């Protein structure tokens, strides 16, 4: 089996989900310069709601695809409601406050959502029922499953839809105008509050779907899943240039691939026994042993190291505009 291609496929799948979540961060940031720390929790709630509905529907013998669709259809409005509520209650009153104030409320909202989920679903891990029979196809020596194909198709479909929404519709124009200059956009007749609320709603809806996909891919959902997913997605958004929509997509996919490749290769690369000059000097290597400096448990480090390296050389992300220093 071709390891490289396999890791690229796995990375692409995870990365496309990161990208969709990253969109939620980047759209909100682009429009009100707020790191919505609670977005990861919205994704988590989407996955939890969908899994609950799906598990409840399984005994009725509906076709698997219908069940998943119903589950997702239930998750989307719940997430949109959560997204709207937090914008309205926790962020809107602070729109003109010092910059770090909404960051702290975002942290507060994140804590609240996570523990509400804990209250509702307890600490149990919700498992995705074995209803979808996944087939595996071989492409050039690497395996790709139906689920992966579906995830890729849905994610890229949603990204395309969002791009059309943002660049081809009146709402999108209003969003871009508000992002550029809220005051002027307001003078031009854009209802800023509505545009911002719409941004949160769209981000939350995307997050809900991403949550379902992520949960389906790994087969489980738990109340803690939002924080690490959110962290990765946020890194992806920054990697691409925060506030930049194509940047979030690129950053997400890139992050997923780098992470998968890193995890796939680091163990072999840092196995000192693989190097002929070093092997005889290390006792552990005798008899085909291994002396691995960094194993795949360093997977999460990769994402961050790449992020730091990119930002050192391109301080505003890959596609981010070079904002001139404040005059």
């Amino acid at each position, binding site marked *: 089996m071709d390891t490289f291609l396999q890791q690229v496929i796995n990375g692409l799948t995870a990365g496309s989900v990161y990208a969709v979540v990253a969109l939620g961060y980047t759209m909100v*940031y682009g429009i009100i*310069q707020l*790191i919505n720390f609670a977005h990861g929790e919205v994704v988590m709630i989407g996955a939890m709601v969908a899994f609950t509905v799906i598990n409840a529907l399984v005994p009725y013998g509906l076709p698997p695809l219908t069940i998943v669709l119903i589950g997702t259809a239930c998750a989307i409005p719940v997430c949109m409601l959560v997204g709207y509520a937090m914008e309205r*209650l*926790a962020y809107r*009153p*602070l729109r*003109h*406050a*010092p910059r*770090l*104030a*909404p*960051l*702290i*409320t975002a*942290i*507060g*909202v*994140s*804590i*609240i959502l*996570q*523990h*509400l989920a*804990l*209250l509702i679903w307890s600490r149990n891990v919700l498992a995705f029922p074995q209803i979808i029979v996944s087939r595996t196809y071989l492409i050039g020596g690497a395996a790709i499953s139906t689920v992966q194909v579906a995830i890729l198709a849905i994610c890229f479909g949603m990204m395309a839809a969002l791009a059309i929404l943002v660049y081809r519709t009146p709402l999108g124009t209003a969003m871009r105008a508000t992002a550029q200059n809220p005051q002027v956009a307001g003078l031009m007749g854009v209802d800023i509050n509505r545009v911002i609320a719409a941004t949160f709603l769209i981000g939350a809806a995307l997050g809900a779907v991403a949550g379902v996909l992520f949960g389906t891919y790994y087969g489980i959902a738990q109340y803690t899943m939002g*924080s690490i997913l959110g*962290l990765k997605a*946020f*890194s992806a958004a*920054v990697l691409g240039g*925060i506030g930049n929509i194509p940047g979030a997509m690129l950053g997400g996919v890139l992050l997923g691939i780098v992470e998968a490749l890193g995890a796939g290769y680091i163990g072999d690369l840092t196995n000192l026994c693989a190097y002929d000059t070093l092997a005889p000097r290390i006792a*552990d290597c005798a008899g085909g042993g291994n*002396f*691995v*400096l*960094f*194993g795949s*448990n*360093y997977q*999460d*480090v990769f*994402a*961050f*190291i790449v*992020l*730091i390296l990119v*930002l*050192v050389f391109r*301080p*505003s*992300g890959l596609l981010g505009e070079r904002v001139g*220093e*404040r*005059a």
Partner: protein
Amino acid sequence: MKRWLGVALVAVSLAVLPFALAQIGTTWVRITNYAILYVLLALGLNIVVGFAGLLDLGYIAFYAVGAYTYALLASPHFGLHLPFWLILPIGAAVAALFGLLLGAPTLKLRGDYLAIVTLGFGEIVRIFLNNLSRPVNITSGPQGIARIDPFSIDGFSFAGSQTIAGLDFSGPIKYYYLLLLVMLAVIVVNLRLQNSRIGRAWEAIREDEIAARAMGINTRNMKLLAFAMGASFGGIAGGMFSAIQAFISPESFVLVESVMVVSMVVLGGMGNIWGVILGALLLSFTPEVLRWTVEPVQEALFGRSLIEPEVIRMLLFGLALVLVMLFRPAGLLPSAVRKRELTEHAT
């Protein structure tokens, strides 16, 4: 005269406090000790965030570096047992080095980009601590390091009870006085820093970096100094944490802790030393007070515990964060500069 009376009153109440708390339970002395550690952390972070305006979301990494430095040099893990007055400066220096390591590559970054890089840095440090047990065991990984030496000077150990002048000094009480002393020293350093040449340079960088550079401030060195100094305070606090706990593991240095310290600084009032102290004390005591009240209140109301106290405690905590920020967006005790900015903004 009146002022000195106030100072004396505060001093006496701080001195008597642990004995009063010990009446309720030694746990409360311990909680107070941890609260003081958080004050140290928050004051250290305040240098970076409040004074220099560099948002650092990975501050707990320096706490971890200090804690692990102490643990490795004073525990059976490597069989080293250096005295604490030697290790604490080493820990502070190592933490400062890590601060430079974080600061140097990120000098060009601003605002939220800096925030995410520092966050990543914190996670990297934690992941390394978690995994540096193989192939060579350095940190013991998730198991952590146990049986760390307590502080001791010349045979006088800070752990364990003893009776001095008819008063019963338990271990936590002795640590309380030590922590209090360190905290006072850190407060004095901070107060002196704020109005020094360095402090004013930081403030200038925070307000407008280009203008600061035009005024002849070496912004690069000043930013690095802020990182290193903030980190060294974190390192000292970490060393003390290690000794008090006698056990550390990567679990204590997760992202939530960094977020918590940032919350303390912002909630109390960034840049205002007294505000930061207030924020740290509030955020470390509130969850504890809730822990001890939530369950009895539920029992009294419903006759049984309906909701896990831990859950309701965190819910109330999150709610408190949101509410305080909604009603006091500049923090509970805003710094003078910020107050000025806010009123100007309003008019």
